[in-house]
């Protein structure tokens, strides 16, 4: 061809383009191994959710891990990357059978574990912890933190943080009005009346996110009836939602929310509702441990954020100190990751006491590792959260949300919203929830795990 060098002719150009295209495609499909692996150095890949907590801590931990392995004479290469949409990148790779070794992408544990896609970490968890020689790695976790990630006895994911669903308030506002924290549910109702009389809404609520109301329901249910009845629902026993005490819990919740939720709360997003709380148009708000972090720049200077849990009921059968809480932001280990053993090793290093302490200092949250969240290194607000977690008789959570996402989206959340806003009677709420669960029970295609044991803790026996 005219104007083209003989060395770079048309045919060669087309052949090269096709070659480059095929190579890129095959690389993209993960069919070529990395250079590090070819050199005989094991390569671990870690995919991170690049969200509010950032990746600086992960970077430091990885560098330390690589140095530690090199010092042991067992060099390793860790490829780690982050993306806000990490889930969309990891999901197709799971399908292709070429996932990263570990990832904290918010993937469905209860779909992956029964499908055999996850790698059991039991051998590592039941072995020594990295830097607490007298404990196994499993023993270093806060009580209940690993519960949501254990499938038929095999723990396949490790939570980085520990989340508790609690109630938040502003000490300054409470002191200004002379309001006292309630010790019983009826005192809480009296307090709400006082708050209303002061022209402030008692509770802001993130109505567009039913998760917040879900924790409210299960807390009340446990306080009223004890953990055994809660666990009957969690183990999807027939008729569990129709139990008179489950219905009574719904009635109490509805009576409370229809009177004390802020007007218009049911259509507020989390930021709208939390801003109402920050701007003191509402005196309290139910939320997870992350509230302080999330709204850091929105609190007025004199705002003194603190927290409490749903108060006990006079005559209630449940524990007054149990908290809806569980490990969160979990790292999953993938069976098909190529180097899952090294991935597990990295996780054990990452969640050592020392690294977890640094995690707490970096992002100001409660670590899932016992003793990692130290009062002297955290602010007063997080210290108050820690007190609630440490004083909890036991922790429990609603596993049905993750187990049965269709039931959650189509039955539970819409019905719960109707309950909280007074659009449905408690009896009808219970009937709809039970009917939806009955469909799940009859559907052989939906995986149903074994009944889970009662949570561990000093207060469980008295809360049965």
């Amino acid at each position, binding site marked *: 061809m005219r104007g083209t060098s003989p060395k770079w002719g048309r045919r060669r150009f087309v052949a090269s383009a096709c070659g480059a*295209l095929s190579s890129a495609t095959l690389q993209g499909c993960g069919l070529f191994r990395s250079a590090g692996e070819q050199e005989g150095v094991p390569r671990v890949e870690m995919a991170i959710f690049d969200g509010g907590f950032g990746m600086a801590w992960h970077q430091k931990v990885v560098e330390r891990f690589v140095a530690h392995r090199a010092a042991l004479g067992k060099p390793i290469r860790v490829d780690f990357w982050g993306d806000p949409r990490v889930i969309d990148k990891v999901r197709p790779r*799971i399908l292709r059978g070429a996932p990263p070794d570990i990832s904290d992408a918010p993937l469905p544990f209860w779909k992956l574990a029964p499908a055999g896609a996850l790698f059991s970490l039991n051998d590592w968890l039941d072995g020594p912890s990295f830097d607490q020689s007298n404990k196994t790695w499993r023993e270093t976790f806060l009580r209940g933190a690993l519960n949501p990630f254990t499938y038929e006895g095999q723990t396949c994911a490790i939570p980085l943080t520990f989340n508790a669903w609690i109630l938040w308030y502003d000490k300054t506002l409470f002191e200004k009005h002379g309001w006292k924290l309630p010790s019983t549910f009826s005192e809480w109702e009296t307090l709400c009346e006082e708050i209303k009389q002061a022209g402030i809404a008692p509770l802001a609520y993130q109505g*567009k996110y039913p998760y917040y109301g879900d924790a409210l329901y299960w807390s009340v249910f446990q306080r009223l009836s004890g953990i055994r009845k809660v666990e009957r629902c969690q183990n999807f026993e027939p008729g569990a939602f129709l139990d008179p005490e489950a219905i009574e819990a719904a009635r109490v919740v509805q009576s409370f929310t229809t009177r004390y939720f802020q007007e218009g709360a049911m259509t507020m997003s989390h930021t709208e509702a939390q801003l109402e709380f920050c701007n003191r148009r509402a005196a309290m708000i139910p939320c997870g441990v992350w509230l302080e972090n999330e709204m850091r720049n929105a609190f007025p200077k004199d705002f003194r954020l603190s927290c409490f849990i749903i108060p006990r009921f006079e005559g209630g059968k449940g524990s007054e100190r149990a908290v809806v809480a569980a490990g969160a932001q979990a790292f999953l280990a993938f069976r098909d990751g190529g180097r899952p053993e090294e991935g597990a090793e990295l996780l054990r290093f990452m969640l050592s006491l020392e690294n977890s302490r640094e995690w707490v200092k970096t992002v100001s949250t409660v670590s899932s590792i016992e003793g990692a969240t130290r009062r002297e290194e955290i602010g007063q607000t997080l210290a108050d959260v820690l007190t609630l977690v440490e004083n909890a008789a036991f922790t429990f959570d609603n596993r049905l949300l993750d187990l049965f996402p269709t039931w959650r989206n189509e039955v539970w959340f819409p019905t719960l919203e109707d309950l909280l806003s007074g659009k449905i009677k408690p009896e009808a709420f219970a009937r709809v929830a039970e009917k939806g669960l009955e469909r799940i029970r009859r559907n052989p295609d939906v995986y149903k795990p074994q009944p889970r044991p009662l949570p561990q803790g000093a207060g469980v026996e008295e809360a049965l």
Partner: protein
Amino acid sequence: MSPHRAHQRRFALAAVTPAFLLFTFWVAWPAVKGFYFALTRWDGLSDPVYIGLENFQQMVAGFSAEAGKSAKLFPVAIRNNLILMIGPAVLILALALCFASAMRSRVRGASIFRVAFFFPNILSAVAVSILWMLLYSTSGFGVFNALLGWLNSGLTALGLAAEPTFKVPVAFTDSKILAWSLIPMIVWTATGFYMLLFLAAMQAVPETLYDAARVDGASPTLQFFHITLPLIWDTVVTGMVFLLIAGLKVFDAVWVIEQQQSRPDSNTLATLMYSKIFNEYQAGYGAAIAVVIFLAVLLFTLVTLRLYRKEALEY
């Protein structure tokens, strides 16, 4: 065939082949696979299981009177899509035609209006949704609720009402009425674009036709219905089809305002499809919804082509 021509043909083939391969690999093949997945039970993680038309039967079953609320997801999504197709289309076409006519007759400040009306169209759908979320908010930042509150106070102060006329805050973004609440937002966003589209078509109509009509004593209204509208009908039909197809594909606004949560009352076909695939891991059912959306868009496209053939008018 001359050697030169054969040479040219080979080169053309070589040039087209990479694009063709890319299209086949990245577009055509996934689309074919999508049709196949619609006939499977698949969680998107493990191997799909062929179940024939079961996913489509499940959709149709939702239309039966005995179907429970959770079975009615598909019909409710269809209803919401119909609201979002017809409501905005009617209002936008009417308003855009009015504004375009006004612009054509060179009303005072026409150029300012043109920019003002077109401006929302350059904003991303997510930005527009967040903006309207704030306008509709029931929190202290909600503009419409604040206006209604002031209106209540005004009416009471003037003695025109003994009690507040409007019960505020109005939950504009309640899932049950969200589709209706989106209509003003879509109208605000899209009217400017269609106004410019129609204005361009109107400016192509020969002025002599209007001169002749004026000589015959035709009023501006008569001129509009007997000259303007018939001569820009092709453009109006195109606009109508664009709007109907856009209404069929609404996703962003619902997803942003509902905070990425799927709600049975506010789902559209697109949000239901997304939720089924990515939240509930029912990729097979989600793919079946995608097939329905594809067929509906195809139907509208064919109808458009048919309308073009029938209504084309020349001058």
